[in-house]
Each structure stands twice: as structure tokens, then as C-alpha cells.
């Protein structure tokens, strides 16, 4: 009897300790760093791509659109990689607009639905990246998700200084 009480009290004490510890650790959002884990491309030798802090992950359901406003600088190369959990299919759409003029700069629908876009801009500009998950991208039976349920989408942005072309002066 005494042993059991000690055992019970110990269990409660352990749970209390655990509960206190959990309070100090903020709950991670569902998708958190999805882009860092799953959108990374295999690194080629000598590549200098650096992580850009404007990258983001979010929770999407089919038919949903989200917009992210970023700044891209002249003289830099950028690589944007979009990736998602298989439940959302592999035909995610993303468009890039100049946020001042609303001019469409890129639409992956007109580039074989590529999920990777590498570019350089003639000017520094604020852009809007619009990410869209089409309806019916996968059969709900195959993915295990119903059409209105959601899954993670990541947008990884990387940058590097544009290589100087031509002869350089010493």
C-alpha cells in the first residue's frame, strides 16, 4: 500500500515537472520550418546559394491562395523553390508580381509547372509571390486527405551575389 502511494506520488511529480518544462517551450506551429526541411535542393559543388530569411511555410488546403510580399535586390541571383506534402499534389501554382505595378513577372503555369525558379532582376523591387494550390490536385482516396483538409506548403528563397561577367580588372 505504502509502495503504491509512493509510486503514485512519484508519477504525479514527474508529470508536474514535465508540465512545467512544456510551459517554457513555445508550441511550434504545424508547418514551422517545413521549407527548410523539405524544399532544399541537392547542393551542387561550388554552389553559393544562401538561405534568404523571407522564406515561409504555411498550411494550405486545396483551392487556397496566399500572398507574400518580399524585396529582391538588383545584383543578386534568386532561387525560389516551392514544395508541399504529397497530399496537395505536385502541381502547385506560383506567380510573381511587381507589387508596385501589379505586372506579372512569372507564372509557373506557363513554364511546365516548374517548382523551381531561378532569376535575376534588373532593378530592386518589391514583389508579391502568390501561391495557389489547385482544387482536385490529388484523389482524396490516394492521399488520405479530404479535399478540405490541409497540408504544409513551403517556399524556400535563396540568394547569391550575381557573378561578374566578362574580364575583371586587377
Amino acid at each position, binding site marked *: *500500500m505504502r509502495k*503504491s*502511494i509512493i*509510486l*503514485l506520488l512519484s*508519477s*504525479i511529480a514527474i*508529470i508536474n515537472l*514535465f508540465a512545467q518544462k512544456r510551459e*517554457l517551450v*513555445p*508550441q*511550434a506551429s*504545424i508547418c*514551422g*520550418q517545413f521549407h527548410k526541411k*523539405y524544399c532544399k535542393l541537392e547542393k551542387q559543388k561550388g554552389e553559393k546559394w*544562401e*538561405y534568404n*530569411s*523571407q522564406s*515561409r511555410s504555411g*498550411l*494550405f488546403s486545396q*483551392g*487556397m*491562395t*496566399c*500572398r*507574400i*510580399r*518580399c*524585396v529582391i*535586390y*538588383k*545584383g543578386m541571383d534568386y532561387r525560389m523553390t516551392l514544395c508541399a*506534402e504529397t*497530399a496537395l499534389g505536385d502541381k502547385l501554382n506560383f506567380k510573381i508580381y*511587381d507589387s*508596385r505595378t501589379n*505586372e506579372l*513577372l*512569372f507564372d509557373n503555369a506557363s513554364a511546365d509547372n516548374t517548382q523551381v525558379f*531561378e*532569376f*535575376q532582376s*534588373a*532593378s*530592386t*523591387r*518589391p514583389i*508579391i509571390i502568390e501561391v495557389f494550390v489547385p482544387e482536385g490536385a490529388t484523389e482524396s482516396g490516394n492521399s*488520405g*486527405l479530404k479535399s*478540405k*483538409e*490541409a*497540408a504544409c506548403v513551403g517556399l524556400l528563397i535563396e*540568394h547569391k*551575389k550575381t557573378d561578374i561577367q566578362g574580364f575583371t580588372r586587377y
Partner: protein
Amino acid sequence: MKIKSILITTSSFLFTLFITSCSGDKTEEEIVNAKDTTQVSAEVQKESSGYEIFFQVPSPGEMLSFIKSVGKRDKSKISILNSTENINKYTDEKSKALNFGIYSTDLSYCSIFNLGSESIKYFKVVKQLGDQLGLSATIKPEILARIEKNIDNTDSLVVITDDLYYSSFETLEEGKQGNILALVVAGGWLESVYIAINMVDKFQKDNPVIQRIADQKYTLENLIEFLKKHEENSPDVKQVKADLEALMKSFNLLKEEKISDTSLKQEGVKKFIGGGISLVIDEKVFNEIKTKVLKLRNNYIQNQ
């Protein structure tokens, strides 16, 4: 006997509960399966009710790396940074958050410009303020050991300090501490512009650092929008937003030139997007921006 059995069963149940809750990293499949449909619907509704826009602000480290990349390697001036001795002035939440951002940028500066021993000093103040802002679980004491171990390795130091900034950002974002995060981002951005301004000895139109300062107009636009999202119920964020809007008035004096080449070229896998607008800065506007940035940054570090 009966009581004994009940107690043992209860203990076993509680122990099992503890073990289950403690399970570590989930697999991708588990993450998907664990999603609560109710919670998801709420988030989806919020998102789909009119294209919520997320305003992103590049990290201060990106500005500092740029300065170094355009040849300012010899310009490491430790005296321009916020003195670590000022930490005792930060007793309220606003000054703590703003100066957490400012000191984080200074820490990045020390890493990027290879000031290893100073990195330790700045890490300590970042940690001290971070603890007070509820970031003790993110800014772990082990990071100091990593900094000390890599004190002569600039690349590793940069990775460590970048990670520190990103993880602090993420913790505040995920912990729904948007008002603190907004102030941290504002402080970090302001310090990066302040450092950039201090790298300019003499105004020259074609100086890439000056052009990068002019281009901060767009980042400042995003930052103000970001602050707007968090100003509700936060007089501190509202105040900082007003300060930055006053600074924006000077950025609005920049002239704009249309870039004539609007072609879209393909260079291998890379596309070249032509067109856009070039921001043109003259000495008068540069000096006006400089004066405002210096004054605002001084107010924040002196906690005035």
C-alpha cells in the same frame, strides 16, 4: 488490496501518458495525420477570406553580408555598435525588444566582420535580453560554447548567429508574441541601416552601399505593414510605427527612374527580368535619411 490495484493502475496510466507526451520528432506522415481538422478550418477560413498578405523583412545579416561583399572588409568599427554597457537601461518591454533586435544585428556584425571576441560580449547581452523576453529555451547557453569554439572561424560564426536570429524570430512568431517580434524586427532593421550609413565616408552616387540604403524604402514599406498587423493593443508598436512612418517621409523624397530594358531573357536556367524602377538618391536626401536614422537609433539605445 483493491485500493492497491487502483493505485497501481492509475500510476501505470499516468506513466504511459507521460511517455506518450514526451515522444520526440514526428515523421512527416505523423504530422499530417495529427492535424486537427477544426484547427485547420479556422486557419484556412482566415486565409481564404481575402488573400492575407505576409510582409517579409530581410534579416539584418543580409544587409551586413552585402556590405562586406562590396569590399568594406576593412571597415569594422566596433565603436559604432550599441555599447553592451547600455543593457541596464532597458527595463521596459519596448526597450528590451527593440534592443534585442539591435544587439542581434551587432552580434551579426561581429561575426561577419570577424570580431570573434566581441561576438562573445554581444552574445551575452542578446542572451540576457532574450531570457527576459521569454526566449531562454531558444537561446541556449550551449550556443556560447559554440561561439567560443569557432571564435576564429568567420563562416561558422555567421551560421551560428544567423541561426540564433531565425530561431528567435520563429519562437516569437509561433508563440504568438507578434508585438514583441515586430519591435525586434524594427530594432534589427534600424541597426542594419545605421551600420550601413556608418560605412559611407563620403557621398558618391555610385557607391553600392548608398544604393542599398536607398533600396531600403521597399523594406521599410514592408516593415511598416508588418508593424500595422501587430499594433492593435500595443501602444509600443504603434509608437515605433509612427517613428518609422516619419522616416518613410524622407525615403519618399527619392526620385524614381524607369528602367528601359523590359525584356525577359533566359540565361541557362536563370531568367533575367528587365524593367522596373531605379530609386535615385542625392546627397540632400541621403543626409536627411542619415540624420533621422541616427536620431531614432540614438533614442532607442538610450531608451529615451
